[in-house]
C-alpha cells in the first residue's frame, strides 16, 4: 500500500451517441435504452435510461432511422466485474399505429479507453405457435420480454427462442481514470489495429 491516501475507486466515463438504425420493413421507430451495471458500480453522473425521439425513414432514400441521441454517463467502482452494459429496445409503429417491439440489443461498454463505432444486432422473441403470431399481429401485442433488462443477463437465456434482424449503430468514446492506481491494465495505448472498427 502507498504512503499517501489514494483514490478509493476508479471511474469510467462514456460519451457518444445512439446514431441510427436499419431494420427491415420498419419505417418509423423509437428506441428505449438502459445501462445495466453490477452491484459494485455506482452511477456518478448521467442518465441510466432514456427514450429517443420517434424517427421516420425519409422518402426515396435507404431505410435508415436516424436518432442522433446523446449518451453521457459516468460510473465509479472498485471492481471491474459487472462492467456496464447498454441494453436497447426498438419500438416501431405497425400499420394500425400501435407500438410494437422491433428488436432488443445488448452490448458491454468497451473496456479500453478510445473511440469506437459499434453495431448492436437486434433480436426479438418468437411467438410460440403460428396461431399466437397471428393473434399478436391482430392485437398489436407481439411477444416481448417481461423484464427489459433480460438481454443483459447470462442466465435464463437458453429457454428463449428469438429471431434476429436489423441493427443499431452506436458511437462511444471511453475514458478511464485511476485504473492504474488499482493495478488494472486495460490495453489502451497499445497498437490495436482491430480496435477502432468493431
Amino acid at each position, binding site marked *: 500500500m502507498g504512503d499517501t491516501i489514494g483514490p478509493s475507486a476508479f471511474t469510467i466515463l462514456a460519451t457518444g451517441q445512439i446514431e441510427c438504425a436499419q431494420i*427491415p420493413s420498419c419505417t418509423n421507430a423509437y428506441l428505449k435504452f438502459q445501462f445495466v451495471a*453490477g452491484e459494485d458500480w455506482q452511477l456518478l453522473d448521467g442518465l441510466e435510461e432514456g427514450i429517443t425521439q420517434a424517427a421516420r425513414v425519409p422518402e426515396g432514400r435507404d431505410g435508415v432511422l436516424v436518432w442522433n441521441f446523446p449518451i453521457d454517463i459516468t460510473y465509479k467502482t472498485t*471492481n*471491474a*466485474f*459487472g*462492467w456496464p*452494459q447498454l441494453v436497447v429496445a426498438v419500438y416501431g409503429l405497425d400499420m394500425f399505429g400501435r407500438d410494437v417491439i422491433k428488436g432488443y*440489443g*445488448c*452490448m*458491454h461498454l*468497451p*473496456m*479500453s479507453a*478510445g473511440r*469506437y463505432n459499434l453495431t*448492436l*444486432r*437486434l*433480436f426479438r422473441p*418468437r411467438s410460440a405457435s403460428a396461431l399466437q403470431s397471428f393473434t399478436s399481429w391482430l392485437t398489436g401485442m407481439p411477444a416481448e420480454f417481461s423484464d427489459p433488462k433480460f*438481454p*443483459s*443477463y*447470462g*442466465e435464463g*437465456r*437458453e429457454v*428463449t*427462442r*428469438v*429471431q*434476429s*434482424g436489423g441493427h443499431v449503430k452506436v458511437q462511444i468514446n471511453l475514458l478511464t481514470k485511476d485504473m492504474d492506481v*488499482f*493495478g*488494472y*491494465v*486495460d*490495453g*489502451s495505448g*497499445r497498437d*490495436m489495429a*482491430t*480496435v477502432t472498427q*468493431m
Partner: protein
Amino acid sequence: MAELHIIGQLTGAFGFPSQNLFCKWGVSAGRSWELLEGLDAGQTQLDLAPDGEPVVWAHPLDLHYACRGLAGWPKIFFQVWCQDIHGRNDICGYGFCHVPTSPGQYELDCPTWVPEGTLGERITAFFLGGNPRLKYEEVVYMPGDRFRLNTVASGIVQLRLGVMVKDFERNHVQFG
C-alpha cells in the same frame, strides 16, 4: 494476487448449414486459476436469422479469475447446435479459442468443425438427423489424441471480448 477480467459477449455465428442455432459454451482454466465471480458455462438463446445474415446470440460474458500461475490460461469452448423445423436439436460444430493474453478489446472469429461419419451414416443422417457427436468432449479444447477423428469444417463463431488484468506487471509478466 493477479486477477483477470474477461468481459464481452458471444456475439453470434455465420457460415453454418442452418440459420436456427444456439450455442452451449464453457470456459476452462488450469488448476492455478480460480473463478471468483461470474458464470463459466451456459447456453445462449436459440436465434433464427434471415438468410445471408449472421445468427445473433449477444450472450454476455463476465468472468473474474484469480491467478496464481500462468499455466492453464483460460480458454472458451463452444458447441453449436441447430434446431430443425421438427424441434430436434443436432450438433453443428465444436470449437474453442484461448482468451487473448494481452489486455485490450478484441473481435474474435473462431472456426468450428463437426465429426463426420462414413458415407452410409451421412445418408442416414440426411433423412433421420443425428450427426455423430463426440463421446469425450474435452477433446475439443485439450491437446490430446485426435488422430482417429475425421471431421469436416463448419461455420464460424464470433466473439467480442475485452480482457483486463490486474497486478500482472507487478509480478513481472510481460504482455508485448
